[in-house]
């Protein structure tokens, strides 16, 4: 027999074990809306049996550990998918921003008149059509003013687009730097968490909440850069980026650094080693790829368009004669999207527009007509497309890049949702389940308290025998 006092101990241990069950259940319920939380459960085991005259007799129950329910494989997959999600989200965000800055939107119900012109496509059309109008009335001051006005509108449109896209480029560079800073903070945090988790492991316990926090930090880091991890026996996690180990246990071996390789476009390398990193995922690489890919192609395309426009127009225009017999001036100055402008002298005096191709014949329209025909001619520097055709192709190409990013974000959203559901089915808190557990532990606690009260009454009976 255990004896009454051992029976009291049995009851006490039962109370403690079930109270711990209630506490852990309470912890689960409190974190039921915390997406980063992995549910915990109390592991109960029969307490050590006692040798009695009747043989080994059980001494009740004890809590042996509080276990976290999580799947390491799913955790790893979530980190990997966080990188992919971060990559495509940053691509989509960057390119959506660029689309807005470019400002090329379709309006099929407009009248295509000068007053409706908004985008660069409309402005290109209006320029060449203004040359057409001039060719029917070469000496008309109003037609000349129209040509100059349309040219100024196109030039300012190109300038504006160039400035905005350049500003976006700068913002993306800043974003890379900011994200690298954030990544370094997370690396430090992970190393610190590793240290705390290792200490808890040494003392024989488990740091479940710290593990949750570390997993959240790892996923956040993976969203920034694609990481490779290795879990050690002491529970710490080593972290590598681009093949370079940055965190080993509780130590931060190196950090990330953003730097300018000389072309003004920020890249990433290790701070101490100075090794340029080839990142394969994460929002940092997504930003870099958007900046150096579709955005750069768009900016270069606008510069080529402006350069070709200035070259082709000036080539025809300079041979023409103005109303005063003057010749040889340029129509456009500058040769990039950011610098192209209408010759200031021309802008101030429409009579200086060199529309005639014959000296002394101000009514001749040869140059005006040739300028108009430039709008329908293929240009070698533009891939043998017309100016409008080349720009439309640039817009379409950019649209493909953003459309692709949108599709990838949508697909990745579905993949991530599926993985989260899978992980939540293992680690997530089910309120219904926890409520049932709560009731279970509560009933067991009540039953356990009866053991104590019964043993207590029996003790009093025994004591009363002596009095």
């Amino acid at each position: 027999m255990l004896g009454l006092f051992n029976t009291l101990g049995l009851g006490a241990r039962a109370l403690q074990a079930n109270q711990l069950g209630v506490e852990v259940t309470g912890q689960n319920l409190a974190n039921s809306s915390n997406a980063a939380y992995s549910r915990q459960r109390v592991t109960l085991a029969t307490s050590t049996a006692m040798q009695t005259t009747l043989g080994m007799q059980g001494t009740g129950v004890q809590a042996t550990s509080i276990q976290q329910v999580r799947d390491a494989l799913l955790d790893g997959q979530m980190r990997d998918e966080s990188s992919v999600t971060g990559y495509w989200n940053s691509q989509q965000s960057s390119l959506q921003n660029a689309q807005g800055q470019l400002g090329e939107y379709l309006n099929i119900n407009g009248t295509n008149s000068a007053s409706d012109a908004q985008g660069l496509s409309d402005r290109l059309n209006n320029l060449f059509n203004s040359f057409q109008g001039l060719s029917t009335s070469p000496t008309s001051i109003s037609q000349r003013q129209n040509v100059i006005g349309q040219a100024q509108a196109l030039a300012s449109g190109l300038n504006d687009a160039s400035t905005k896209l350049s500003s976006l480029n700068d913002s993306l560079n800043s974003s890379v730097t900011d994200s690298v800073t954030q990544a370094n903070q997370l690396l430090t945090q992970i190393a610190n968490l590793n240290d705390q988790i290792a200490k808890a492991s040494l003392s024989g316990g488990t740091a479940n909440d710290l593990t949750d926090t570390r997993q959240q930090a790892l996923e956040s880091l993976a969203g920034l850069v694609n990481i490779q991890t290795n879990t050690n026996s002491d529970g710490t996690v080593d972290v590598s980026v681009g093949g370079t180990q940055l965190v080993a246990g509780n130590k931060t071996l190196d950090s990330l650094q953003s730097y300018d390789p000389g072309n003004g476009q920020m890249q990433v390398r290790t701070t101490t080693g100075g090794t340029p990193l080839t990142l394969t995922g994460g929002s940092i690489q997504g930003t870099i790829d958007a900046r150096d890919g579709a955005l750069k192609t768009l900016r270069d395309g606008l510069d080529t368009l402006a350069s070709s426009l200035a070259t082709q127009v000036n080539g025809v225009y300079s041979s023409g004669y103005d109303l005063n017999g003057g010749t040889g001036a340029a129509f456009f100055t500058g040769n990039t999207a950011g610098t192209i402008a209408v010759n200031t002298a021309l802008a101030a005096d429409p009579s200086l527009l060199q529309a005639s191709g014959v000296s002394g014949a101000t009514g001749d329209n040869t140059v005006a007509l040739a300028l108009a025909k430039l709008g329908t001619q293929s240009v070698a520097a533009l891939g043998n497309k017309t100016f409008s055709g080349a720009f439309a192709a640039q817009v379409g190409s950019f649209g493909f890049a953003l459309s692709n990013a949108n599709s990838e974000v949508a697909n990745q959203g579905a993949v991530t949702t599926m993985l989260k559901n899978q992980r939540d089915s293992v680690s997530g808190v089910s309120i219904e389940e926890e409520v049932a557990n709560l009731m279970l532990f509560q009933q067991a606690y009540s039953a356990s308290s009866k053991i104590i009260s019964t043993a207590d009454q029996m003790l009093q009976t025994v004591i009363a025998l002596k009095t």
Partner: protein
Amino acid sequence: MRIAGTSYTQAMTGQINVLAGRQNQLQSQASSGQSITAPSDNPAGMTQALGLQTDQANVTQYAQNVTTLQNHTNLMSSALQQLKTISDRVSELATQSDSLTSPSALKANAAETTQLIQNAVQIMNTKDGDQYLFGGTVSDKAPYVATTDASGNVTGVTYQGNTSVNASEIGQNSSVTVDVPGENTTGSGARGVITDSRSGADFFNHMISLQNHLLAGDTTSINTVDQPALAKDSDNIIYQISSIGAVQTRLDVAASSASSQQTSLSTSLNTVAGADLAQTITQLTQAENAYQIAMQTSSSILQLRSSLLASLP
């Protein structure tokens, strides 16, 4: 499979967001009447639509060119008709004078001929805006200048223009020349209205000759020299009127063609970028219904959970 609380709410929120996004997209299409607004909506369609809009803009400009040229040719036709009237009157004076013997009557006809010359110079210096109709491509000076003697008789009319004429585009790879010079003695190119070596016309000089013969009372020269010469001038003017008429017909055809092209391009553009409103509204209604149902079912499930928690002792 276990359903955790967070996975349920995440799925519910995700689905509602998708439905809300879909509604937003369809509402935008319905209100704008377009299936493509931004390049990312349909990149290939956007490229195609921009190309069609360029074609539309070009056709619109060609139509405007036609209108400008139609106005120009109307002015030219009117001027030529007035010139024809002068030509007819001058020929009438020449015929009439052939049988006149009274010096005063001949001098009266001479005075009227002088006046007709001045009128003809005025007509030939007609402008369309700031552009002379009959000066070729010279626009900074009037095509004709008349010189007179002390008695007011015209001694000469000088042409200050040239023989060049402009071509103007009225369609893709289609151009037309509407201008005619006042004078062309080169034997090639557009025929001159007043002076032309191919037709033998030299209207001003022929009228001056008639004026002088009338002043001199030389009815023989009027009969043998002036009348045949003025007949060539009349034929040349009739030719010019007929030519302008042909150009005007061609401009009318070009205007009609441009209108047809605009209609065709609008149809093509709507096919590429327009929204099928019936389909869009149907899809929008479906999305709205799905959204409402999702909200209602989510609310029901949350209420059930609340009931469960309320049942705890």
